Every structure is written in C-alpha cells, then in structure tokens.
C-alpha cells in the first residue's frame, strides 16, 4: 500500500503566500519532515490564489473569493488533483490531504470570514474571523471526487497562523491522520 500526501502548495513553497504570510524563506518543515519521516510520497497541489489573484494579491476572506469565476478556476485545478488522486484512492492506498486552516481556498476545518470586507484595501486591524468550513478549492475537489464516486481522503489543516497555534497539538493532529 502506497502512502501519498497531497499537500497545499505553500507548504513546499512559502513564496505562494500572500505578502506578509510566509513563515519561512522556503518551506514549512514541521509537516514536510513529518510526512517524509512517515514515508509519504509528496504530491504538491497547485495554488489557485497565485495563478488567479497573483503574487501581489491582497489578503482575502472567503466572501471575496467565492465567485463563480474563482470556483471555475478552482474546479479546473480540482480536476487535475482528482485525476492524480483517483488511482491511489481506488487502489486503497493511504492518501491524506493537508490544507491550510487559515485559507479561504485551502481550509480543511476552518476558513476566514469577514462579510463586511470590500473596497479600499485598508481594513486596518484584521477583524476577520475563522469560521468552521472548507476552502473553495477543497470544496471543489470534494465535488469533483464525488462525481467520480470517491470521498475526500483523510485530512487536516495546518494552523500556523492561528493566534493560539500550538505546534505540539498540530503534530498530534497530523499524526492522527497518518498511517
């Protein structure tokens, strides 16, 4: 049984984060190292936000990204991811999905929300909140897999931007979804 980890693009490429969002110069090693220690093959997801909003995009919340055109863009990428994921799921391989729980696109359990954000990009203090829910790419991937008769694999989201981020809790949570 193969072990395959599909992980959010920015975990291997911090340059894909919004400006101000990178935690390290290159990669987020805690998750990359744990996956390698456990013998997972890495499969990097595309970053829908880089390709759509660009490297200089502003921070955004789910309400801003949730447009028909952005969903179409995410669905196009989800079809690619599903095509790579499908043979592993059908073979019964150990497949995990690692997202970003502060992302409007890659959230697994949480996604940022601020229904009042719009217009001039000077919201001042960040008053967005993290609400339960998936990001838009994750939702589109779930829908694409469902059309193929497949469920989303085991999954969790990295929470390194949570105010109460606890690396030990995150490692335990990651370990709970890994074989």
């Amino acid at each position, binding site marked *: 049984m193969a072990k395959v980890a599909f992980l959010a*693009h920015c975990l*291997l*490429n*911090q*340059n*894909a*984060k*919004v*400006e*101000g*969002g*990178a*935690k*390290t*110069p*290159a*990669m987020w*090693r805690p998750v*990359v190292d744990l996956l*390698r220690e456990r013998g997972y093959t*890495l*499969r*990097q997801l*595309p*970053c829908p936000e*880089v*390709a759509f909003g*660009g*490297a*200089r995009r502003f*921070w955004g919340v789910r309400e801003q990204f949730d447009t028909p055109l952005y969903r179409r863009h995410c669905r196009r*990428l989800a*079809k*690619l991811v599903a*095509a*790579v994921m499908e043979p592993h799921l059908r073979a019964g391989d150990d497949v995990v999905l690692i997202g970003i729980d502060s992302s409007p696109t890659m959230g697994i359990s949480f996604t940022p929300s601020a229904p009042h954000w719009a217009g001039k990009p000077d919201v001042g203090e960040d008053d967005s909140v993290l609400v339960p829910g998936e990001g838009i790419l994750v939702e589109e991937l779930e829908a694409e897999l469902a059309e193929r008769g497949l469920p989303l694999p085991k999954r969790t989201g990295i929470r390194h931007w949570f105010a109460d981020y606890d690396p030990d809790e995150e490692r335990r949570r990651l370990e709970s979804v890994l074989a």
Partner: protein
Amino acid sequence: MTLGSDPRGRRVAVVADSLLEGLLDRLDEEGYGVIQLPPAGLDDETTALWLEQVAEHVAEFRRNGYEVVLADGGVHAAALERALAGLGVGDLPPLDDRR
C-alpha cells in the same frame, strides 16, 4: 502588508518529482521554495494539465521578479518550455550544480 514584509526567499525551484526527495534539504537551506513537476505514470492529458498550471505559477513569479530555476533532469524540459513560451516566459536557468 507590503512587499518584503515576510521572510520569503523570493527564490523558486521547479523540480522533477524524481529529484525532489534528494534536493529538498539543500533547496530549503538555500531558500528555494519548490514547484513540483508531474510524477511519472500519469496519462498525457493529466501531465499536460500539471505542466500548464506549473507554467502559470512560474509566469506569475517571474513577472514579479522572483528568481526561478529548473531542476528537471530533462524529462519535462521541452514541454515546460513550450508551456512557458505560450505565456511569454523564456527558458528557466538550471539550478546550479553546487554541492
């Protein structure tokens, strides 16, 4: 937030799947984020879609002045070159061979 407000390296390496595991530590030490090229065994359509989205990422990073290098081993170089050319982006320099 403004440009330069976080520790990103502004260096990206486009890396063949077969080379990724062996290069990860070095690339991280040198401040390169990674864009993974398609693994072997995918059908032609899926491989083309993967390369297309890689090219879109590369074009955006190049447009914004990021250093982007290639560590391919020759498998996808020609197809990636075509995909990049379609977006007006020239060839990527190779990751140098310093060890």
